[in-house]
């Protein structure tokens, strides 16, 4: 029984990280209708930046917030300089640009920080809590991971639901022309969408950094599982990203625990196809899809 609890707790903390990455995919899909393959590369760069800041300044939290700010900046710059140019054209072009960006980011990281991965500090101790004789697979850092992701998701939910800025962003995402007629600067909203998404990605990078170490290619698997979670939950709904991430995290942990590590990627495929057969637009997307 304790093994089941261990696997569940492990699934929750991994699921939270997949959810944060899924949130990044959802925010970008809602804002600019682009699947951002460079998400893994962007969060890798910001985590490298954090690592350099931490090692030079010696303070973890300075590195933490610098990474989030770098995420905001990187997202805005990528949208404004690149994605905007290909936004009007065929949708596949934007996808290919993000693939090119992914390759470029991994190469740049290799040049600046070398291909050898480096250690990344956790915010809190990773030692599991001991209850009675058994030490559980859930320590202070895992608690922080879950709280940080839930906190950021809530903050975004509040931003979208309650603030004027959130209203303008949603209007730009759903009906750009009508939004312009209400005085909304749609271009800025798209940039903000990418910036917030990239910040969500940076948070995921900070949280999973200690677990995968920081290297140019170390974040690719988490980006792939994050995208799978986003599709699972439905690309139009931030809530779907959270639930999709959790479902994926838990199921992969159980599969790896009970069936064996080699089945993990096959399990991800099976889960996604099963859900999509029942709900072709993900769990939480309304049937009414927006006409492009």
């Amino acid at each position: 029984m304790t093994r089941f609890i261990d696997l569940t707790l492990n699934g929750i903390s991994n699921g939270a990280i997949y959810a944060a990455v899924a949130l990044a995919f959802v925010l970008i899909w809602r804002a600019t209708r682009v699947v951002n393959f460079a998400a893994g590369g962007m969060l890798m760069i910001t985590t490298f930046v954090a690592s350099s800041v931490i090692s030079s300044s010696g303070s973890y939290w300075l590195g933490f917030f610098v990474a989030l700010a770098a995420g905001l900046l990187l997202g805005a710059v990528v949208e404004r300089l690149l994605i905007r140019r290909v936004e009007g054209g065929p949708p596949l072009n934007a996808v290919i640009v993000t693939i090119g960006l992914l390759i470029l980011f991994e190469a740049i990281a290799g040049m600046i920080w070398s291909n050898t991965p480096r250690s990344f500090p956790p915010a809190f101790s990773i030692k599991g809590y001991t209850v009675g004789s058994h030490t559980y697979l859930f320590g202070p850092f895992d608690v922080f991971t879950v709280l940080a992701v839930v906190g950021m998701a809530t903050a975004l939910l509040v931003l979208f639901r309650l603030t004027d800025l959130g209203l303008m962003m949603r209007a730009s995402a759903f009906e750009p022309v009508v939004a312009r007629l209400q005085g909304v600067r749609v271009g800025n909203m798209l940039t903000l969408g990418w910036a917030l998404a990239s910040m969500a990605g940076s948070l995921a990078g900070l949280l999973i950094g200690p677990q995968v170490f920081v290297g140019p290619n170390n974040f690719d698997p988490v980006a792939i599982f994050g995208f799978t979670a986003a599709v699972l939950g439905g690309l139009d709904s931030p809530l779907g990203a959270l639930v999709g991430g959790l479902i994926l995290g838990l199921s992969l942990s159980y599969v790896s625990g009970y069936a064996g590590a080699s089945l993990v990627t096959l399990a991800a495929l099976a889960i996604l196809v099963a859900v999509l057969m029942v709900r072709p637009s993900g769990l939480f997307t309304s049937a009414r899809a927006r006409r492009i």
Partner: protein
Amino acid sequence: MMKTRSRAMLGVASCLTAAALVASGCGSGGGSSTSPGITKTSVLIGSHQPLTGPAAPGYSEIAPAAKAFFQYVNAQGGVNGRKINLIYKDDGYNPTNTVTVVKQLVLQNKVFAIWGGLGTPTHTKVVDFLNSEKVPDLFVSSGCPCWDDGTKHPYTFGWQPNYTIEGKILGQYIKNNFAGKKVGVFYQDDDFGQGGLAGLKQQLGSQIVVAKPYQPTVTNVAPQITAIQKAGAQVLVDFTIPAFTALERLTSFKLGYKPQLAVSNVGIDPTTVGGLLKAFSKGKANTALIEGAITDAYLPSPTDTSNSWIQLFKKIHDQYDAKAPFDGNVEYGMASAYTFAQALKNAGKNPSRQDLVDAVEKGGFTGPGLVPFRYTKTQHGGFGGGQIATIKNGQIVTQGQPMVTDPGGGAITVSNMKQAQVGDNGVVKP
């Protein structure tokens, strides 16, 4: 209008195809006496390495270190008056690229020999090609037994000790020193891990109560470690690459699971593993989590500055490859390069490719290795064993006697070989 233009497009397409293909066709044909790639004053050798991609960490340091060693030897006049030029290309640990890259080295760059091709899944794809082209394929950087068969692959030679040999030597030590203790094995799900497990099983048999594999692309190893802890393993043997040694250490620390640790020499390099654990040491030494771990060594420890080889390698590193950290991978590259230079020296004044192969088969190499090589006409495996060592305050400290054996059922015997000094064999001066 449509028809003529579509034909025009066709014309444009085909002549452009021709131009592109021809343009790349003009390879650099090297002048050659008896074999390609070798002249009076220089010899060209090539290699395929994972410089980028998921397998790059650690392994990407090996080739630059070897190149630095050759630069040092060339600065001293090279071998038999010949400078050794090494070109290594990136295959990103993808077998399709390996085939393309190696064929380019052989057919276009016309290298004299291939040195240190890295990776079992990649090199197994080109070993047949290299043998059919009769290109010496010296010192493959992989411990798979696939390179041992001299009759099947007459031009291919291993270098590092075979994984099964390592497993046997570690297994014997655990059997003698931890009799009756339950043993758990955490291993990579490929030739490296399975070879090690086979060696361990030969020695420990039913003493192994649990063996859990991992996939290099899945970094969440918590399910495996909890299973091993649950099975009550008191001794844990890691046949892992450095990143996964670190991940296992972190998960065990998280679970408060403190078994007696043993790690294959592939995954124990204190500088690399310590570097990955640095952020978690909180003041204590980086290598706190691997303190007291048992391992096997066939080369002197990179931190043992009293050893003449380490002093030489450190000097070369500081002069030609300073940016890279001085760790086990750098030492591996330089030691393997030294053996290549030694083989080239023994191959005589004007060696053909066959002379080089014969020189290696004659064997009798001494160098930084703690144990002898196993090279014979038919047996092409490299080092024949290793010496048990433990991690004492972050350094690999050898103990007992170097042991030699074969990957099969053969007994494990003590080797009486003394480690050579830098000046011997006249290959390189300190």
